[in-house]
């Protein structure tokens, strides 16, 4: 039982480390390029901005969920 917990904890830490690298890359690449465009959209076309905001939020959530699920499977060798 203790061995299982230690393995799970270790897998979680590795997962968080990989995830942190991916998120930092994401901050600098995606948000940097999207920032100006979204700002322009927010000031000039609010309805388009509202639609794009929801699509971005849902799209990112689906993508991140897939990434974390993939990492979980990869590191623990089984589906959660």
């Amino acid at each position, binding site marked *: 039982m203790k061995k299982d917990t230690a393995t799970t904890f270790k897998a979680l830490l590795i997962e968080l480390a990989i995830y942190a690298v991916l998120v930092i890359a994401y*901050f600098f690449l995606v948000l940097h390029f999207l920032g100006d465009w979204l700002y322009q959209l927010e000031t000039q076309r609010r309805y388009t901005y*509202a639609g794009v905001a929801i699509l971005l939020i849902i799209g990112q959530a689906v993508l991140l*969920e897939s990434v*974390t699920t993939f990492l979980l499977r990869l590191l623990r060798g089984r589906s959660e």
Partner: protein
Amino acid sequence: MYFPISDSHIHPLYLAIVGFLIGVLGGFFGVGGSFIAGPALRAVGLPWNFAIGTDLAHIVGKSVVAAKRHRALGNVDLKLGLIMAGGTILGAEVGAQMIQMLKRAGNLNLVVSLVSIAMYIGISAFMSWESWKTHALSKGRKAKRADSKSDHSAFSHIARSIQKLHLPPMINLPVSGVKAVSLWVILGVAFIGGIFSGFLGGGAGYIRMPAMVYILGIPTHLAVGTDLFEIILSASYGTFTHAVKGNVDVLIALVMNTGAAVGAQIGAISTQYFAGPKIRLAFVPLPLIGAAIVIYTLMSGHKL
């Protein structure tokens, strides 16, 4: 990091950590977590209107992650969630109108504060009493880990009586194990949750999740997962209306969701290891935190 839409400087790590904490709570309890996210965004100087709108956008993303995970665990009743979304959106509009009426009457803050304190404390008191009672009743029974999803409540008889209420059309919810319940009861529960969502802000999961368990008779794990799915729809609607009014900084919400994606998965997976009454008992402090924030705001005059 500079966020041009809200003209604010916030460290992205702070946002990711806040998102992570709310993600864990949301994944485990099926709540939006606005009672933490709102004050956390205000604490770093985000204007109040942006804190509310951006929080809703963040709730959408976090709920997508948590609901997807709950769906994989078989904890989402899509039919129930879709029906409830209609009632919630309608209720949220009525709640928002009530806010406008109170604004005109000039006693908005006092009424909203007193109602929310009474609601939060009432829910906490009732749930702690019910969970302890259920726990006492089930003492002596040998609970196997495989049965962690099986649910029982000291108030199951209330849900059974409500299910017997014959107000057509009757809806069958096989995923939730409910043979027949009136559509009007489902819409009523969602509508009341929506009123509180519009009236007090946030997703009002702290009202809807317990209501699904005690009134509709939905097992706790399914109530958590279905509530999250329902929140995706109602919070998307809220995000759209707030974004049109210029209250959403989507960049902040996107950064918060990077932390929430991990937290929500951890929270959702954790529900597998706890039985329904234990989840409900662990839920008790959440509305009390909300009550404490409102009491502080009321007494100090500072909005957190």
